[in-house]
């Protein structure tokens, strides 16, 4: 028996708590949680990492991560994380926020955290809809998209146009790493993980604000099956929110990155 060896190829990250989540079947929050947890494990920063949960579907994220966690008011996670980080500069602090939380009610807080070059990492889940409250229009809802508060589709003449947060935040000099990835298939999930890792490394190196936007699904409120939802990301969200590296700190670019915003991802995340 002693001659037998076991190679573990897949297991639950230590940074995740072994319980069921409340997320709907087919929702990509679970994928995003796992990627963040894997990165924290791989970087060996679990004992010094503090998360800040949003208001929205991920409000209970603190139950799923095996980390110190705070639960912020709606949209205020970047301000709360600023207080945490300034009080403990040697800790790793990240926020996990949805599109309503980050791009609507918390637009001022995320903008100024980035503008200050606050040494934080933000994981931004963009699923183009309000999930928790039952499918209302988000600031990222696509033109024509039906939600419970745009029952005939988002009329841009009436409701305006979607906010593109990577494009906005990448204009700020305090931003060190602003990228968008997608969770609709395996190659893109692998790229997303590499980007999340880079974002946490940016914080470790004290380079400034880092954010990874993740295009995500909401089968329940989109009224689609999980499979159809992934296709909907590919067919509808990718053209509106192109994945890519929107701002990369020169210190990272020197590592051989090429900045691309064409959906293929940069060399930073290994191509693929």
């Amino acid at each position, binding site marked *: 028996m002693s001659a037998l060896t076991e190679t573990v190829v897949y297991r639950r990250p230590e940074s995740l708590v072994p319980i069921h989540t409340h997320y709907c079947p087919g929702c990509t929050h679970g994928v995003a949680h796992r990627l963040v947890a894997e990165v924290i494990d791989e970087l060996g920063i679990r004992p010094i990492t503090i998360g*800040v949960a949003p208001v929205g579907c991920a409000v209970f994220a603190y139950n799923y*991560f095996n980390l*110190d*966690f*705070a*639960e*912020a008011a709606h949209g205020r996670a970047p301000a709360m994380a600023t*207080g945490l980080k300034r009080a*403990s500069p040697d800790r790793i602090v990240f926020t996990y926020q949805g599109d309503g939380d980050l791009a609507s009610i918390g637009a001022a807080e995320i903008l100024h955290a980035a503008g200050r070059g606050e040494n934080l990492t933000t994981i931004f889940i963009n699923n183009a809809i309000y999930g928790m409250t039952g499918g209302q229009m988000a600031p990222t809802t696509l033109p024509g998209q039906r939600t419970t508060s745009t029952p005939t589709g988002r009329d841009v003449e009436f409701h305006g146009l979607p906010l593109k947060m990577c494009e906005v935040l990448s204009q700020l000099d305090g931003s060190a790493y602003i990228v968008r990835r997608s969770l609709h298939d395996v190659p893109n999930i692998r790229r997303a993980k590499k980007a999340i890792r880079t974002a946490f490394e940016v914080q470790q190196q004290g380079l400034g604000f880092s954010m990874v936007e993740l295009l995500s699904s909401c089968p329940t409120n989109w009224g689609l099956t999980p499979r159809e939802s992934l296709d909907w990301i590919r067919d509808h969200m990718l053209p509106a929110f192109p994945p890519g590296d929107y701002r990369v700190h020169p210190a990272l670019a020197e590592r051989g990155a090429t900045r691309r915003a064409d959906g293929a991802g940069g060399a930073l995340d290994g191509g693929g």
Partner: protein
Amino acid sequence: MALELLEGNIAFAEAAIRAGCQAYFGYPITPQTEALEHMARRMPELGRVFLQAESEVAAINMVYGAACAGVRAMTSSSSPGVSLMMEGLSYIAGSEVPAVLVAVMRGGPGLGNIAPSQGDYNQIVKGGGHGDYRPIVLAPATVQELIDFTTEAFDLAEKYRCIVVVLTDGNLGQMMEPAELPPMRPVRPFSERPAWALTGADGRKPNIITSIYIDPPVEEAFNRKLMAKQAEIEANEVRYREFLLDDADLAVVAFGTAGRIAQSAIREARDQGLRVGLLRPVSLFPYPYARVAELALQVRAMLVVEMNGGQMIDDVRLAVQGRVPVEFYGRMGGVTPLPDEILEAIRGLAAKVPPREAVG
């Protein structure tokens, strides 16, 4: 330590520093901006945190975050800014982290003006933000008290893991008078942060700080815990000051600046032969209901003086329970009453209400 000529806003900021405040977050607003400016100079030179936030909404949430990290954290603001902080204050109350706010009231409602007022009594003392909670509220009447109460606020906030508000007005914030600052206390080292603080789950179970209890019975149990804590605060932390009440048959009840001005009026009234004294509540929560109730058995009437339309008077009436007449004199909108006006109100009350013996 010796007496120095100090402006109120700078005095409370320096007092907070000496009390070991490790993080200050604020947003400029008159009439308390000198405090923010003092912090901007002093905190970085001491290696502590000063940050001018993008709004009062952000400032209070930064305080919330820093408080979660287990450091002594505070902000200061004035009426419109404090209104913006109500969301954050409710969350802080709902997650039981200690935090200190110095609220320097000004005329309102709305943008109002930048003159002294007490128009935010109900907002601050009754909780202000959503949900069932009360902060400890301390109301100074002198720069010395402003220093002392700010210093003590940090200890009380940590003792009860609650919000402590030092409630003052633009008058005291911008007044200069001799006062003594406390000795400098060091900030808490990282290794001595509280066990509940978010410092990283290193060799222990994760700490979670949240104000959401999705299951109503669990939320109710949490609310009961808050109520029990409030009862403990009510039992232990009632503070008030008295002036010439021993033989008084008329009592003036006034807090903060109004109490200080009333004291001048009472001196004059005594010279005119009126047996009048002052009860100046210092803790507005917990309110000195028992002392007011006791006075209702002694005096023939009470006069409540406030720099608002009549807010604390509800608490006085609650304690008096109709035993004696309770009259009101107030100025609003940033107007400060003069001692003569209050004296006139005292004389009017003395003439109107018969001696207690006559009432039988």
